């Protein structure tokens, strides 16, 4: 058992080390920027793997909290631009165009660095905690919970587009200042930004690993398996689910902040259905029940997509291929590439340990009847 743990730590450590060492080999600024983007997506995948893979909560609106984090960072960096304004009030340019005369109250606290950085993680977490309490407190689970997360995201997206004078509307928030922290400037096209993202990813990955290995992580897996049963041992299932939902949102928020730094803008598309769908696909491909699998799934898929995006026609075909691949994986490999690799490794003749033969995949346990999710 502990041998397995050691092996897991080694694999995770090695992968992170490789990621951290990339700038040693690559010094093309554009490539580094691109890779940093993929890493951000990897972080998003970790977030979804925690809630979906471990706790069985399929969040079809993971991009909501990603978007909140990204807007927090964008608001902060917008207020840092010199000159921030076209008028006399120190207002962002798009507000002036929309005849706003005074900095709106939601913007005011983002003049503080500490507040902004905390808000980028804590606001999404708080948002998810409230939403989670609303959903799970009412015993809504499964498909219905997934649909709620999707609907909430679309609402958030519509509101951002509609409230143009506060959010920049359709165009999002652009022309940002460069992020600098503790005396380091994080130019989007620099190794320092890459390191920032890679280090955040490493920390996130190990944090998520610790959570998944803790008893809380175990209880979440039990909830995924048989929610009712867990309740009768005295665990507050709704609280556990809300916790992991909020944790996942906090990670997504951090990813959103980093994404704004890397992309140098925030846009309502960050809270879009296509991105949320993509996250689900990455995680499904990589393996929803493996944190590192999900992360590498995201990096792999977006990497290939990035390489193909040179030609427009090819990108269209790629979307088709991704759709097909996704259906096949859902159908044939519910545990994704990580699950397939794990099964392969297990099948290798292993030091005469006869018992391992029994550890084949269990048949997929039927969940409750389709009208699931409703209150019991």
């Amino acid at each position, binding site marked *: 058992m502990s041998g397995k743990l050691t092996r897991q730590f080694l694999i995770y450590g090695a992968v992170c080390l490789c990621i951290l060492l990339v700038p040693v080999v690559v010094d093309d600024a554009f490539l580094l920027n691109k890779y940093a983007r993929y890493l951000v997506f990897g972080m998003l995948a970790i977030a979804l793997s925690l809630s979906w893979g471990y706790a069985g909560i399929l969040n079809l609106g993971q991009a909501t909290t990603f978007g909140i984090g990204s807007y927090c960072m964008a608001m902060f960096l917008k207020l840092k631009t010199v000159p921030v304004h076209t008028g006399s009030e120190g207002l962002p340019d798009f507000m002036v165009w929309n005849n706003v005369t005074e900095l709106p109250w939601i913007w005011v606290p983002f003049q503080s660095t500490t507040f902004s950085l905390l808000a980028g993680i804590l606001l999404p977490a708080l948002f998810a905690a409230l939403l989670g309490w609303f959903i799970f407190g009412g015993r809504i689970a499964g498909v219905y919970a997934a649909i709620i997360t999707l609907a909430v995201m679309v609402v958030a997206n519509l509101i951002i587009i509609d409230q143009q004078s506060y959010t920049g509307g359709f165009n999002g928030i652009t022309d940002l200042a460069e992020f600098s922290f503790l005396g380091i400037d994080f130019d989007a096209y620099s190794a320092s930004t890459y390191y920032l993202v890679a280090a955040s990813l490493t920390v996130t990955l190990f944090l998520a690993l610790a959570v998944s290995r*803790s008893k809380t992580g175990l209880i979440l897996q039990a909830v995924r398996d*048989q929610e009712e049963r867990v309740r*009768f041992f*005295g665990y507050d299932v709704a609280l556990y689910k809300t916790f992991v939902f909020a944790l996942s949102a906090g990670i997504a928020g951090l990813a959103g902040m980093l994404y704004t730094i890397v992309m140098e803008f925030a846009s309502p598309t960050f809270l879009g259905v296509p991105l949320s769908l993509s996250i689900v696909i990455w995680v499904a491909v990589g393996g929803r029940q493996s944190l590192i699998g999900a992360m590498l799934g995201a990096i792999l898929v977006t990497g290939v997509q990035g390489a193909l995006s040179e030609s427009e026609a090819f990108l269209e075909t790629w979307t088709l291929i991704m759709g097909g691949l996704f259906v096949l994986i859902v159908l044939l490999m519910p545990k994704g590439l990580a699950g397939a690799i794990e099964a392969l490794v297990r099948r290798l003749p292993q030091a005469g340990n006869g018992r391992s033969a029994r550890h084949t995949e269990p048949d997929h346990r039927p969940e409750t009847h389709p009208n699931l999710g409703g209150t019991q």
Partner: protein
Amino acid sequence: MTGNREQLLALRQATVSFQGFVAVDRLDFSVAAGELRCLIGPNGAGKSTTLDLICGKSRITSGEIIFRGEPIHTYREFRMARTGIGRKFQVPSVFRELTVMENLEIGCSREPGVWHNLFRFSGGADTERLERLALLVGLQDELSTQAAHLSHGQTQWLEIALILAQDPALILMDEPTAGMTAHETNMTAELFNRLRGQHTLIVVEHDMGFVRDIAETISVMHQGRLLAQGTADEISEDPGVREAYLGSGGIGHA
């Protein structure tokens, strides 16, 4: 029987109806601390539903349920469990995707908080106790087997072990020997006799041989009501009980 021992659980006029169908009807039922009570009755008598009421899976429509002096029927399920009630379900339900050891760790729920459990990792202080429990139910060699791969009898035992890991004052067992071989049933009877005194047990069973092996007092339910209560001999002499079982082939084969 319950006179000189402290009363642990009491149902008073407990009633539940499902869209007009009264499954448990003004039931008065009490159990003393440390007792091993058997609950029998023909199919559909309301035995499982009664256990559901005690653990919170179903809610009474009127009446009350008092456990250790508290009116627990107002609590949410997890709070009821935390007051010291454990339940084994009629359809064995364990966590099939987790290993036997992991299952046992879930059962061990004295500290149910999210925050607390965030800093607990497997191989902690409970391991030894859990291994002993696994030994008690004969699963000591299956600790890292996925629960999905256990046989039916082993699954039943795993669930019993889960309840013992939870260590509740009151244990509700719904047909624990269903699907067990005669040998396994005997072992279960032995186990229950050992639990006597440490825990209070309510055991729902159809197997009269098993009931005779373990019971002190037997309560008989019929059509949602308590029909009779007494020792095994008293029960089998009772004309009302005989009538209730008529047509289902007599009490032994119900």
